[in-house]
């Protein structure tokens, strides 16, 4: 009897989990149709990458330039107030025009989030190597000067052929809310996993 009493809570917990099982069944994989072996997805026959897991979801850019964006809101969102959110993207044609990283970074930041009225601090530029390829990492903070929403962004410039492409993530937070190191880590994994599977339009031109 004692033994049964000892195991009863565990039994009840087990029954509870079993009852809830249908409710917590895994969501359908949003990338299913593009999923390859090893967990990566093949995007429009152009790129292969490992997408970040839910709650990251794809954003419909309604554009036709082979760019890709992912979004997640975070648990700290205050309904009716500024949302707490992170966005990461691959841009085939990032703002600016130079084919060298450093001038392109400065051109990019002139237009990046321009409509959000963000004022950037001095960006930190660090040459890095990703999968044996030269890249430039740009880390920058910013603030909306009136509402005091704060921003942290990380941008990675790489070459595809002779042109510059970019990966970026930005995190917007209301003043006082912390930024997520986990979101930056997801971004780094996304960038590291990214491969071009064929020469670009420009390389074939």
């Amino acid at each position, binding site marked *: 009897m004692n033994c049964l009493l000892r195991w009863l809570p565990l039994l009840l917990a087990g029954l509870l989990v079993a009852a809830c099982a249908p409710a917590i069944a895994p969501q359908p994989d949003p990338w299913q149709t593009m999923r390859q072996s090893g967990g990566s997805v093949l995007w429009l026959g152009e790129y292969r990458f490992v997408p970040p897991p839910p709650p990251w979801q794809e954003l419909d850019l309604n554009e036709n330039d082979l760019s890709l964006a992912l979004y997640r809101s975070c648990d700290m969102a205050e309904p009716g107030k500024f949302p707490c959110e992170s966005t990461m993207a691959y841009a085939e*044609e990032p703002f600016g*025009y130079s084919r060298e990283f450093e001038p392109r970074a400065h051109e990019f930041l002139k237009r990046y989030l321009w409509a959000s009225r963000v004022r950037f601090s001095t960006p930190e530029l660090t040459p890095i190597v990703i999968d044996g390829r030269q890249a430039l990492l740009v880390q920058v903070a910013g603030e909306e000067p009136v509402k005091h929403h704060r921003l942290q962004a990380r941008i990675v410039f790489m070459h595809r052929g*002779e*042109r510059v492409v970019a990966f970026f993530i930005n995190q917007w937070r209301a003043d006082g809310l912390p930024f997520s190191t986990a979101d930056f880590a997801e971004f780094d994994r996304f960038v590291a996993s990214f491969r071009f599977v064929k020469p670009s339009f420009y390389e074939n*031109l």
Partner: protein
Amino acid sequence: MEGHQRNLYLYDRFNARVAGVSRDDAETLHHWTKELGLTFPVFSNPVGHLGIWFDALEVGSPMFSRNTVVIDKWGTIRYMQRGSPDYREILRLLKQLHAEEVGP
């Protein structure tokens, strides 16, 4: 316009030049192109006759609508397309024009 700036090196390869056209005065265009860092010219056409000729001025509108035209080096209009520039389509055409120019 930034897309054209990005493609200038390719236009060079295909022996092509590019220009923007608007109804702004030249002084305004000077400041604007400087701010954007555009190194190709933007034409000032306040009267708007270029817009009439190249189908970029709708009746009742004070401004040009977006429209891209390609004129080959022999003076023939080869392409007119409304809307934002389709840069890839333009590049493919310029490549073809360059092939016509240099021959087989």
